[in-house]
C-alpha cells in the first residue's frame, strides 16, 4: 500500500520580526519552504505510515532544481523517497500543464493514494487535484479532514454544511486533505539526518513520455486590469469610552446603516 504526496515549494512568507538573521552566513533572502497547506497532507500520509495502514510514502514535486530542498524537508518529517520532475520546458508552466505532468508522474509511480493538500485559494491552483484525477480517470476524494485507507478502499471525512460525511471509493484514488487534519509534526533531528540518505530521483519530461509541445499553449486567461480596491473611508474608531457608551455609539452606527 503506497501513498504519493504531491507537494509544492513556495517562497517563505516575507519579513517576520526577526532581527537575528545576522547569525546566518550570507543568505540573500528568499528561503524556500514547503507550501504550508501541503504539510497537512504530509502529516496525514505519515500518520497512515505510523499506524501501518500504508507501507510507503513517496513525495512528488514539480519545479526547478531547487525544489529538491522542499522534498528533503518532507523526507525529514518522515517517508521513504522523493521524486522531482524538473525540466527547462516547465518554466512558467500553468496549472493545467502542472496537472498534466503530475498525472503522468503519478501514473508512472502508480500509488494507491495520490494525496495533496488543499491548494491555494486561487481557482486554478485549487483545481489541480481534481484535474489530475480527471486526467488519470481515478476517483477523487477531496477536502478531507481525515483520510483512512483499509480493505482496498479509501475514505475521507468531509465536513458538510452542517455535519460531516465519510466519502469512499475503491483504490486507487486521488485525495486532498485540509488543515483540519491536525498539526504537522516537526522534523526531528534524526529525521533530518536520515533525510540526507533517502533516495531522491530527478525526472525530466522525457522520462514521463511527454514533450514540451504537449504542455505548451500558455495561459488560458489573462488579467486585463488591476486597480486598487475602492478606497474605503478610513476606519472609524471608538476608544476610551465605557462599555455602555461604546455600545450606544456602535448601535447608532448600525442604525445609521439600517443594520438594526
Amino acid at each position, binding site marked *: 500500500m503506497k501513498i504519493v504526496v504531491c507537494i509544492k515549494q513556495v517562497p517563505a512568507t516575507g519579513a517576520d520580526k526577526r532581527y537575528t538573521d545576522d547569525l546566518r552566513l550570507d543568505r540573500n533572502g528568499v528561503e524556500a519552504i514547503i507550501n504550508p*497547506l501541503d504539510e497537512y497532507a504530509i502529516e496525514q500520509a505519515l500518520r497512515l505510515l505510523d499506524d501501518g495502514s500504508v507501507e510507503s510514502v513517496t513525495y512528488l514535486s514539480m519545479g526547478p532544481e531547487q525544489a529538491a530542498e522542499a522534498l528533503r524537508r518532507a523526507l525529514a518529517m518522515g517517508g521513504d523517497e522523493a521524486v522531482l520532475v524538473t525540466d527547462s520546458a516547465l518554466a512558467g508552466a500553468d496549472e*493545467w500543464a502542472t*496537472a498534466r505532468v503530475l498525472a503522468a508522474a503519478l501514473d508512472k509511480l502508480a500509488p494507491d493514494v495520490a494525496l495533496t493538500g488543499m491548494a491555494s*485559494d486561487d*481557482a486554478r491552483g*485549487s*483545481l*489541480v*487535484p*481534481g*484535474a*489530475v*484525477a*480527471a*486526467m488519470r*480517470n*481515478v*476517483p*477523487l476524494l*477531496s*477536502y478531507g479532514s481525515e483520510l483512512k485507507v483499509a480493505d482496498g478502499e479509501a*475514505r475521507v471525512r*468531509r465536513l458538510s*454544511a*452542517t*455535519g*460531516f460525511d465519510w*466519502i*469512499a*471509493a475503491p483504490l486507487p484514488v486521488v485525495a486532498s486533505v485540509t*488543515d*483540519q487534519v491536525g498539526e504537522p509534526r516537526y522534523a526531528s533531528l534524526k529525521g533530518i539526518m536520515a533525510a540526507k540518505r533517502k533516495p531522491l530521483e530527478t525526472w525530466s519530461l522525457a522520462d514521463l513520455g511527454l514533450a514540451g509541445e504537449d504542455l505548451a499553449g*500558455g*495561459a*488560458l*486567461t*489573462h*488579467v*486585463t*486590469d*488591476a486597480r*486598487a*480596491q475602492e478606497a*474605503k*473611508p478610513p*476606519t*472609524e*474608531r*471608538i*476608544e*476610551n*469610552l465605557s*462599555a*455602555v457608551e*461604546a*455600545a450606544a455609539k*456602535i448601535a447608532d452606527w*448600525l442604525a445609521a446603516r439600517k*443594520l*438594526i
Partner: protein
Amino acid sequence: MANDILFLAEFTAGTPARSALELAAGAAELAIQSGGAAIGLAYGSGAADDAASLGAHGASRVIILGDDDRPAIAHAPAAVAAVRDAGALALLAPATPNGRDLAAVLVGSLHLPAFGPVRAARVVDGVLETEQATLQGSVVTTSRPVEGVATPSVVLVLANTFTPGEGGTGSADVSRAPIGTESAFGKVTVAESHPADAKVVNLEEATVIVAGGRGVGGEEGFGPLRDLAAALGGAVGASRAAADAGWIPYQLQIGQTGKVVKPSLYIGAGISGAIQHRVGMQTAEHVVAINRDPDAPIGEFADLFVVGDLFKIVPALTDEIRRRSGA
C-alpha cells in the same frame, strides 16, 4: 449554443441549494448580456422533482445530470458530456468543495480556462469578464479568457455574489443528460452520513455573522457572542484559532481554509485579523471589530473598530440592541 451561460445547481432532498438559486440569477443576468440562454446542470437527490422551479429564478432550461444522492463528484462524467455538447460561453460553479470538484474535472477533462473565486462576472461585447480580489484584498484584478481558447470558461463564484430573485413565474424545460459511460468518478459513494444538530447554521448563507477569535478565551466565552448574534438575527462564526482550540466546531471557521462568507454585517470580537481569516470575510459589506489591542491588524480594514474589552462591550451592545428594538 455559443453564448449560453451554464450553471451548476445542487439539490438535496428535492430542494435547491441557495447557491443554485444565486447562480441561476447570475446566469440569467449574464445570459441577457450575452444574448444567450441560462441553462442549469442539476444534480443531487430529488433534482428531477424540482428542477423546473429553477425557471422561476432565471433558467430557461435545466439538464438533469443525476438525481440520486451520490456525492457531487459522481455526477462529473455527466457534467463533462453535457458541457461538451452545450458549447456554451461560460459555466458558473459555486466556490464550495462540490462546486470546485466538478469544476476541476471539467477543466482537467476539457482543458478549459478557469476563473475565480470571483466577486463579480459579466459579459462584455460577447466576452466573459470576471473580477477577483487578491489575497491581500487591496487589489482587484479583472480577467478574461485568452482569445481562441476552448469554451466554456469555468467560473468559481463566491456565495452572495449574485442575489436570487424573488422567483418569477417561469418554468424551465427539463431534460435528462444521456447516461454517461462508466467512469472512475461514479465509484465515489457516501459511506456514512452524519448530519449535525440543526442548530449549526450554514455560515455561507448568513447575512449577519458575529465571529470570535483567540480573544474569546474559551468555549464559554462564545456565550455573549451567541447572545449578540441572536439579538441581531445572525449566526456565530470563528477564526481558525478558536476552532483549533476546540471552542467551536470547524464548520464555523471562517477563513482561507474554512468558510468564505459575505454577510451584510460581520462583527469580529477578539479576532486579530490575520490574513488567513481576512480572506474569508473581507467582502462583507460592513465590518465591525472589537478588540483589546488598539494595533490589531483587523483595525486597518474594519469599517468600525472598537478598542475595548469584548466581555464588557458585547453584552452591553446586546442589551442596547434589545432595548432599541423594544424587546
